[in-house]
């Protein structure tokens, strides 16, 4: 517990940015980062809905499948250096994740340790009860008007409940859904004693958090463009860490000897990633204004972030609702050589006729010529010459699984019953787990902390 607010620099590492992210960069941060905190962010929009489906099959499951790998790799070093961990690897089952973590702590002989599960983000019951009045943010229509079956509803909790867990002495805090940035903001609030209604200081913290919540996306991932933007040793990307001062001054950097790059360009790309109005970046803790943020290179792979401002947090919290939306069937095969495009076009005509003959019920069909215009459609420039290779991709959305299976099978059958000289096809059938969003009042949510201890 913190008796006096901290004055020293706080070091917070970002060990992952999605469910299947690499293991060793986080472990490297744990070993060499001299970290006070290590954060593992692992939840994309759909991850919890998928985890909820897993949990319905197995009540002990529903949390991050790489939790064991991450903790076996990082926990011993975190214990040695007194580094606390904050993570949303709990997904649809934070308590199950905390229990599994205790087992790992015991197995590694690292106790005594306190592991906190943050609960209360699951608001499916509330959403079902109020489905007639909750409006979907995407369409404005009530949730009840949605045809699909609701499988999950999780509110984006803020930093406050994580701060409570840290104040109770948790060495490891495991959450489900929450604001990604809140995972990083919570240690700052806890250590520096920032007030939860000091909007400007919270905004400075969130601006730093936003830089690293996608982990290596600020240190050279999804950035390189040869001849334009070079990234040294891209295969050995170092994941970032924040150096935070009590007044909200923040430097983003990475470990020496790792690959990647941190400069104004990587920080600017990350700051603008997945935002709408930069003056109103809404988080559960504060509404952040990025428009006056300044980025200064203060050393090699060191950028100072300043100028973030804030306004009062929103009264309502965003909820991601997972919805079963039907099925997608698809198939692909490649044509090459002289006349490749002509044979691909004949294959498309054949498969469309087969769908008609088979009476396959398709809600929407998409045909792509990969190598020509599959990503940018009509906006793609016309090729000067016929392409040497074309990959035909046919994908369709159906209400029933059997139609998606038939669709994929018809594309597959093209190899023996369609035009000649193609590669063998690949097909897939998958269920669509859609996400819609609603806003619910804070009062509808009661976040809580359940503490587990390993002796």
């Amino acid at each position, binding site marked *: 517990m913190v008796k006096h607010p901290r004055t020293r620099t706080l070091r917070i590492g970002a060990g992952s940015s999605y469910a299947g992210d690499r293991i060793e960069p986080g472990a490297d941060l744990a070993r060499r980062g001299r970290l006070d905190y290590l954060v593992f962010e692992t939840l994309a*929009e*759909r991850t919890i809905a998928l985890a909820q489906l897993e949990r319905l099959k197995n009540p002990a499951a529903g949390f991050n499948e790489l939790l064991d790998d991450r903790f076996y790799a990082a926990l011993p070093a975190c214990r040695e250096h007194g580094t606390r961990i904050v993570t949303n690897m709990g997904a649809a089952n934070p308590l199950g994740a905390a229990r599994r973590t205790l087992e790992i702590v015991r197995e590694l002989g690292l106790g005594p340790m306190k592991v906190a599960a943050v609960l209360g983000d699951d608001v499916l019951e509330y959403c079902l009860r109020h489905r007639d009045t909750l409006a979907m*943010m*995407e369409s404005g229509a009530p949730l009840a008007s949605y045809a699909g079956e609701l499988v999950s509803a999780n509110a984006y909790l803020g930093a406050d409940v994580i701060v409570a867990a840290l104040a109770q002495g948790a060495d490891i805090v495991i959450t489900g859904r929450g604001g990604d940035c809140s995972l990083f903001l919570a240690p700052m609030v806890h250590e520096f004693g920032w007030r939860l209604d000091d909007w400007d200081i919270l905004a400075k913290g969130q601006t730093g958090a936003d830089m690293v919540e996608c982990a290596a996306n600020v240190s050279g991932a*999804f*950035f390189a*463009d040869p001849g*334009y*933007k070079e990234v040294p040793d891209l295969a050995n990307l170092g994941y970032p860490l924040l150096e935070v001062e009590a007044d909200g001054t923040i430097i983003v950097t990475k470990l020496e000897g790792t690959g990647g790059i941190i400069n*104004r*360009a990587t920080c*600017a*790309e*990350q*700051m*603008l*990633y*997945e*935002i*709408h*109005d*930069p*003056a109103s970046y809404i988080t559960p803790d504060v509404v952040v204004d*990025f*428009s*006056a*943020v*300044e*980025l200064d290179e203060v050393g090699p792979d060191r950028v100072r972030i300043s*100028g973030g401002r804030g306004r009062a947090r929103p009264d309502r919290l965003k909820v991601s609702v997972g919805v079963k*939306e039907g099925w*997608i069937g*698809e198939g692909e095969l490649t044509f090459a050589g002289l006349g490749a495009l002509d044979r691909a076009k004949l294959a498309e005509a054949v498969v469309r006729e087969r769908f008609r003959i088979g009476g396959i019920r398709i809600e*929407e*069909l*998409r045909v*792509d010529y*990969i190598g020509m215009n*599959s*990503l*940018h*459609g*009509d*906006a793609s*420039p016309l090729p000067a010459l016929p392409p040497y290779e074309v990959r035909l*991709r046919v*994908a*369709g*959305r159906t209400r029933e699984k059997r139609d998606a299976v038939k669709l994929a099978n018809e594309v597959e059958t093209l190899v023996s019953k369609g035009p000649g000289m193609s590669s063998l096809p690949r097909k897939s059938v998958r269920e*669509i*787990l*859609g*996400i819609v*969003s609603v806003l619910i009042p804070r009062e509808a949510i009661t976040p809580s902390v359940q503490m587990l201890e390993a002796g």
Partner: protein
Amino acid sequence: MKRFYLRELAHARAGDKGDTNNIGVIAYRPEYYPVLLAQVTPEAVKRHFGTLVKGPVSRYELPKVCALNLVLENALGGGVTRSLSHDPHGKSYSALLLSLPIEVNNDIAAELEAAGRKPLP
């Protein structure tokens, strides 16, 4: 006046939220930022993306970092989760934006050509 691809003046990253795509576009040099302001307009972007973007395009300015944020609505085939595209997030849209032709003055053109960049014919 010469024309270059936007790629010679700026870099970009695209992201998604539902059926909306956003592209942060950042000038390589402060002196390129006014060129972006004048020519990377919502109208120009909407035209460049054609039928890919069914809704409006809006733009936000970040002069401190010489950047623009472009927000493209109804641009992801009905939404990331149900889109039939094999880039449902539109992560590659930033590459399409960087192929926008941009007119630059002689000073900038000379600077770009000295760095080995080729103007458009």
